[in-house]
């Protein structure tokens, strides 16, 4: 859990993914398209990835990936990110966290 929180606060936009997860691929693509450069942590490629996945689940992430953090705060999964983007909130949060400037 500490690992997750630690990594999540290291950059304005942080996404936990798995290399086998194609929805993660979509969310990453969206962030790149917006000009944000998120830190991406692929849980299946990390030694303590399993523990981090459990930690994310305990935080309420369902599915566990993709798990998006902006400004150190857990924002949500794919569905949440898409919903927030449609009503303009995602960009607001990214600007607020200085992940993007416009």
């Amino acid at each position: 859990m500490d690992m997750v929180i630690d990594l999540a606060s290291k950059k304005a936009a942080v996404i936990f993914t798995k290399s086998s997860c194609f929805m993660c691929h979509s969310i990453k693509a969206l962030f790149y398209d917006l000009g944000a450069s998120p830190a991406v942590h692929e849980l299946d490629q990390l030694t303590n990835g399993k523990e981090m996945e459990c930690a994310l689940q305990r935080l309420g992430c369902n599915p566990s990936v993709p798990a998006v953090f902006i400004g150190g705060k857990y924002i949500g999964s794919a569905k949440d990110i898409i919903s927030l983007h449609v009503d303009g909130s995602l960009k607001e949060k990214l600007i607020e966290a200085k992940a993007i400037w416009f």
Partner: protein
Amino acid sequence: MMANVSPRTDTSADGDIDDKIPAFHNSDGMIVSNASERSRDQKTLRRLAQNREAARKSRLRKKAYVQQLESSRMQLTQLEQDLQRARQQGKYISSSGDQSQSMSGNGALAFDVEYARWLEEHTRRANELRGAVNAHAGDAELRIIVDGILTHYDDIYRIKSEAAKADVFHILSGMWKTPAERCFLWLGGFRSSELLKLLMSKLEPLTEQQMLAITNLQQSSQQAEDALSQGMEALQQSLADTLAGSLAQSNSPGNVASYMGQMAMAMGKLGTLENFICQADNLRQQTFQQLHRILTTRQSARAVIAINDYFSRLRALSSLWLARPRE
């Protein structure tokens, strides 16, 4: 001696002169008729016999016909009962999310029926809205109808989500839509970003704030669509790689196990398709809801009508296409 003229029932209509000739008794006291009378007797008897036979046959035919009618009636009653039962079961299947076993065989058909029903109701509501707008109804009345339509949209997305669980490929195929609509198919439905582009001109006059908001909405939905498309492409590529990998194996036992393993992996990948449909539908719903937050009641009404008009035209085009003369 005068002979007794016994009245004889004679069914013939001809006024035979022989009728007038009376019978007379011979020495034995028997009434003897002459040759022509005898033959007439025989004719009459024959005719009577034939009549009896015809009547008997007619009665038999009538009896057979009535029996046939009665058995058909029983069959019809049975069929009606079966249909009633099937309808009730059909309703149960389509409304319950747990019936994945019974859905899998007729899941596609059940969805098609549900979608047709939903579309009919939606069209009715859109026409009601059109009527209200033409009758210069007030904002309050329009609001009620528009809100009803927006809530009704939620129904089809819920039904679609259940159907995608049962048969994701049917939803993806778009076979439940008309041909011309399928032209524009994206992840099992329409593209919200394209729909917004169509609507822009129809919604004028818009305030500057509204113009900006709708432009942003159009851009956001397009970005989300592109992101989902990229995820799908990655999925397709990965699936192709997995299957190509399994092709390289020979038939040795170790490789059969690896083949099975790769098939299992491919199966897992197919399983994620449902999530993509789910996210695409969520995008459509969210975009629609956001649009109606931006618009006034009257503009919302025009938007609903315009969208309905557009899709009606697409469906009409499909009908024309299907009915076109072929060489």
